[in-house]
């Protein structure tokens, strides 16, 4: 089910009988109709194995299941909200940035360290993104949170995009990412431009970047 943007910090979702959706616990602002909110220990779709995986990967932001018939408004902490529509592809996003998403989407956890070898392991430490990230796959809509507005930058072969790790929000598509450094001797002696590390994204897809270097 699609989200309707009420303003830049609030979205409205229509809940239909027999259709589920998931949202971050406590993100409901208001609702109309007969809607129930139940804590979801499993953390979305994927069963017990996924739950254990998420616990171990520290990607277990508490979720709740939203069911019934009516409309629900979501928002959280005054953050900006970006709605991303998936058409069969995979979205990569940090669990704490997920506001709400369609219940039909398949949820999983991915080990980011597997991309880029040793630099992949370093990336989690440097960017503060952690070694694991949450994936959502299928057809449906996802609402993610960001500090400030979000811009969407297309990624295509021959058109790599470099992103400040602190400003990175999410990406989708068939995209490889690695940490690139621009460290020279100048940075070592403390005269850096402040842009020493970047996430390099290549392949086919899009990346979402927030207008701020602040994490949520």
């Amino acid at each position, binding site marked *: 089910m699609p989200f309707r943007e009420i303003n830049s910090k609030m979205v409205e979702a229509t809940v239909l009988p027999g259709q589920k959706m998931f949202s971050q616990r406590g993100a409901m602002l208001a609702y109309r109709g007969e809607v129930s909110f139940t804590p979801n220990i499993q953390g979305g779709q994927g069963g017990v194995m996924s739950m254990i995986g998420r616990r171990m990967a520290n990607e277990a932001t508490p979720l709740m299941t939203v069911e019934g018939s009516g409309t629900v408004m979501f928002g959280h902490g005054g953050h*900006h909200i970006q709605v991303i529509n998936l058409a069969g592809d995979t979205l990569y996003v940090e669990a704490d940035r997920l506001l709400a998403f369609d219940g039909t989407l398949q949820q999983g956890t991915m080990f980011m360290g597997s991309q880029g070898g040793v630099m992949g392991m370093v990336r989690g430490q440097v960017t503060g993104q952690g070694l694991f990230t949450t994936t959502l796959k299928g057809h449906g809509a996802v609402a993610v949170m960001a*500090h*400030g*507005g*979000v*811009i969407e*930058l297309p990624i295509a072969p021959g*058109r*790599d*995009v*470099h*992103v*400040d790790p602190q*400003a990175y929000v999410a990406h989708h598509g068939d995209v490889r990412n690695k940490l690139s450094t*621009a460290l020279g001797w*100048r940075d070592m002696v403390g*005269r*850096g*431009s*402040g*842009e020493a590390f970047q996430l390099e994204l290549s392949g086919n897809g899009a*990346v979402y*970047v*927030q*207008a*701020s*270097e*602040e994490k949520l």
Partner: protein
Amino acid sequence: MFRLQGSRTLAVDLAGDAVKAKNGSMVAYDGRMTFKKMTGGGEGLRGMVTRRLTGEQMTVMEVTGQGTCYFADRASEINLVSLRGEKLYVEASNLLCTDAGLRTGTTFTGLRGGATGNGLFTTTVEGTGQAAIMSDGSAVALRVSAQYPLFVDPGAYIAHQGSLQQHFQSGVNFRTLMGEGSGESFQIRFEGEGLVYVQPSERNTIGGNV
């Protein structure tokens, strides 16, 4: 070549040329870019010493490359300013990005600086080209002409350009001293010909509490 992507992200298209930007304000880029810190705001040794002495510190990097570079800073709103040989006065903390062809410097603001909470010195940008300034909420550019002087709350002022004289004025009276102030005891009066940029938010100033 300066474009706004939304109201809080600045996109700059570069074709081998350079821009000066606030240190660490890049959020993304495509193509090839290099980032180099400029000592003393790129104003040479003299500028470096002046900035140290006046406390109007500005850490700037030079971005050179081919492609599009995106800048943003703590989700502040961004405003584009075009300069044709004029001088723009802006606080260093509100300056996000300038054309490499624009010269930056430091100037004395007089009594205004003390009241805006920004110090006694401000940054100037001079030449022909574009600059991007930041504000808390979307700023409005108010025109000042000979017949129409403008009064601005020191906490809401962010920048001005053109040939303007500024006077600091206070409405402090007996009531204020008795603790019955309106909270609007200080204003800056702008006279002449030019533009003043005002943000819909007020910094904490000494004057604001009187």
